[in-house]
């Protein structure tokens, strides 16, 4: 467990960067700044400053033309982070029955904040319950079954996640896909990757624009909307990234909204 201590020396986002670089190198044998920015969905500027800090820590080295290399120490650290990430994710999924996608996200934050001590206990506990006697096993199965059933109805963990990331107001906002054909709404936020967001902006999907859902394609997927006097079709994947204003905006978060009729 001694190596684990190293984790936490650098800030969490830098650890994530290390992880990304490590995975990129595994995948394509090199990592360019541009790939890192794409992968983490952040700006080149942030990548650049992160790389500078990592280089100061002696964890990465710059090669030519924007290619980033891991030092030995950097690689060890990245591997540690990754191992933690994987363990935590497996633990959440197989023991606590947390849905895979959420577990993946949570693992990404736990891996940075958890003390080596807790990590160690988690490992032992995992070993314990998987090797212990019959009795506990059956109780434990009941517990898990309970959660498995809960999940089928509606997953409660989702909400916590929205709240953390996007603030309370948008946590339960309607999406474009929630509209019925013929209904209109006002765009509030766009919650999508860089690339898709820019594309939507270019097509005029911006906050405070009125959009009308015209129809859903017969096979159920792309939808057709009307905005700014023209018709646009989008897949539900992209459309669900468009959050709508509530009909009665009451949140204190944006007081300017009340000016809007």
């Amino acid at each position, binding site marked *: 467990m001694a190596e684990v201590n190293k984790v936490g020396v650098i800030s969490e986002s830098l650890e994530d960067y290390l992880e990304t670089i490590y995975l990129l190198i595994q995948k394509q044998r090199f990592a360019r700044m*541009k790939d890192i920015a794409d992968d983490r969905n952040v700006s080149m500027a942030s990548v*650049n400053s992160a790389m500078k800090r990592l280089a100061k820590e002696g964890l990465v080295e710059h090669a030519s033309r924007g290619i980033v290399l891991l030092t030995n120490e950097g690689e060890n650290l990245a591997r540690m982070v990754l191992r933690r990430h994987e363990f935590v994710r497996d633990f959440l999924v197989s023991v606590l029955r947390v849905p895979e996608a959420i577990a993946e996200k949570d693992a990404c934050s736990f891996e940075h904040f958890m003390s080596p001590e807790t990590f160690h206990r988690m490992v032992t506990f995992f070993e314990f319950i998987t090797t212990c006697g019959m009795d506990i096993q059956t109780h434990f199965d009941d517990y898990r079954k309970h959660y498995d059933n809960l999940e089928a109805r509606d997953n409660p963990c989702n909400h916590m996640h929205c709240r953390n990331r996007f603030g309370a107001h948008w946590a339960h906002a309607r999406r474009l896909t929630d509209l019925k054909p013929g209904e209109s709404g006002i765009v509030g936020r766009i919650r999508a990757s860089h690339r898709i*967001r820019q594309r939507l902006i*270019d097509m005029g999907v911006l906050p405070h624009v009125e959009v009308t859902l015209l129809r859903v394609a*017969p*096979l159920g997927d792309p939808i057709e909307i009307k905005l700014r006097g023209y*018709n*646009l079709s989008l897949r539900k994947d992209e459309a669900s990234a468009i959050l709508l204003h509530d009909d009665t905006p009451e949140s204190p978060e944006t007081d300017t909204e009340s000016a809007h009729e």
Partner: protein
Amino acid sequence: MNPSLSPETNNHRTEANPDLPLESVGIAPSTAVASAKPAVIRIALAGNPNSGKSSLFNKLIGGNQHVGNYPGVTVEKYQGCIRYHGSVLEFTDLPGIYSLTSYSQEEIVARRFLIHDRPDVIVNVIDASNLERNLYLTVQLLEMGLNLVVVLNMMDEVRKKGMVFDTDMLSRRLGCPVVETVASHGEGIHRLKQVVVEACGNTDLPRVNYTGVLGEEVARLVPLIQGKTPYPPGFAAVKLLEDDREVAEEMHSDPLFARLCDEVAVSMQRIEKESGTGSAIVLGDKRYGFASGLVREITIRDKEETVRNMTETIDTIVTHRLLSLPFFALTMYLTFWITFTLGTPPMEWIDSGLALVSQFVLNALPDTWLRSLLVDGIIAGVGGVIVFLPNIVLLFMCIAFLEDTGYMARIAFIMDRVMHHMGLHGRSFIPLMIGFGCTVPAIMATRTIRDRRGRLTTMMILPLMSCGARLPIYLMIIPAFFPKNWHAPILWSIYLLGVALAFFVAIFLRKTLFRGENEPFVMELPPYRMPTVNMVLRHMWDRSWMYLRKAGTIILGFSILLWFLLNFPQKKTYDVDTLVAQGTHPDLRLQARVLSLINAGQPAASQSAVASDEPSRNLTDGQIENIRRLEQLNHSITGRIGHVIEPLVRPMGFDWKIGTAFLGAFAAKELFVSQMGIILALGNNDIDAITSADSTPSGTLLRIILQRNYPNPLIGICIILFALIATPCMATVAITAREAGHWIWGVLQWSGLTVLGWLVTTIVYQIGTFIQSL
């Protein structure tokens, strides 16, 4: 906090030009610069997809650019020149773009062209019936500091809606000349030429100034960028704030790049803090805010609410939840019906015309290798392709009609769900449909697919769409092996099988070779428009010409090559002649072969002839000639290759003859039939007859021979399967290689499909024989 920064005020203010003050410089006095005109004026047409750039281009230079009521028709830049009052105007038609980001290939192409090629005048074509969104791009073009002439196109639609715009006001606000046009009728073209010439050399260009934090931050970044990028610094600064990877990448080698990055990050943070949203949204908001303010300002009379919206009405039926799919199926059915039913009579004319030509050559020339090359090689080979021209032309006419009305975009909309399952974009559907006509133009049509991996996948699976050239194979094989009431269902299932295979191959490719993020499906649905006859005919001609060119070049070349391979090395003395001369038949194998040929050639002859001892007695000159051909084939390079590859085709149930015929199919699928005919030692005239009609007795002849040679219908199925899946033709491979940008893709397509075809056919044959043996 500056109020003009919060997004809502941008969209809801009504004062004139509130957010994005453009220095209104007006039109530069034309007389002042008229004397200094360069001899060649370079003009680029830029604008949103489907705004009528290509239509305008065609009217300007009398060109023949592809036009369609479907966003993203033009995918490569296209140039043309005219003389105008002593100077040469060189126009470039650019692909349609919505913005100037680096997220799509067209936008990068357009952006680079505008910066690196520095055209003298940029004609920004605007769909006036959709002003707001089109002006968004105009603002960006102004950001680039270009010499713009704005064209308000589609004014007919605007007038029909009862709208009136104040064009002068627009011109003053934007600081550049504005011309109204109707590209489809040529209205305003003359004036546009005049204005363009006047605008050339204009140095007093309007500039875009942003207000508020955005303006401050841009101003702060500009000195850091100055001189480090080919783009104007103001534009580059804005792009950096939008986190444009390409602009950043270009400056990467700069020693101060890291510092610039930090500064950009600081600016982004400041903007975000002030406005509450990201800088990209703030920028989008500013531009759209300006556009919508401008629209309100210049609209003298708005849309009359009473005008019925035809597009909405059509769409309620055509994309209706229940009706759309039947309607779509009906459209497809009609397309194929027109293609095949109306196409048959002209096909027969061409066929008899070709027969006349070859007869003429046969009579006119002495019996030399040259005559053989002309008749058996060139006329047979190229003719086999040209015969399908009527079908192809009609199919392309239907597709052009669907494209020009705007229904194609709806097809993409309706079918996207299915295509999404294959990991493809709705747009891939259209090339796949064209693939039923001919794979070559279909592969060219994949250019509208923006995402490269999706495009490559589509190209790879396209040969599985059973093209028109494979039809003669089916028409020959199916009646030869199956009773009449099976014909249609079998033909139908072949097409379906191709589609099903394409589906799985696409999924497989997207999971392995072309893994990666899907292109976001964000597609404009244009209003329906009535296509002009002229336009549809022109489209039809474009694509048919492509097909004809394939016949004229690749097929011609391969016909000659194949003829050579069939006729060389030449056999000097034929065994059959020796035998006939001797009057004896020591070679029992040859005897048997002669017998079977006689039998096959004369279906009426009794089976007992096989037992006859002295067949040579009965041989006619024609039959002896046929035997000579067979011997020659055996002796030729093709025959030798056929024997060499026999072990490879054995598992599929084929013998060397079928294998050899498939060698021909590589040049063009339809050559399989004539190869098969030659190999089964039948006169050429008979083969031609098969391709034309179902009922001619000569057509049945080859079928009877086939049946005699291969009594097992399983072989028929295997031939069809292999013809469907394997060995995409030469032209397909060549065009794939060209369009994909590397020959490796052509090789991959060919070998991948051939291996797949071999596997499927082998499995079917082996299982089939196993079941038959039970």
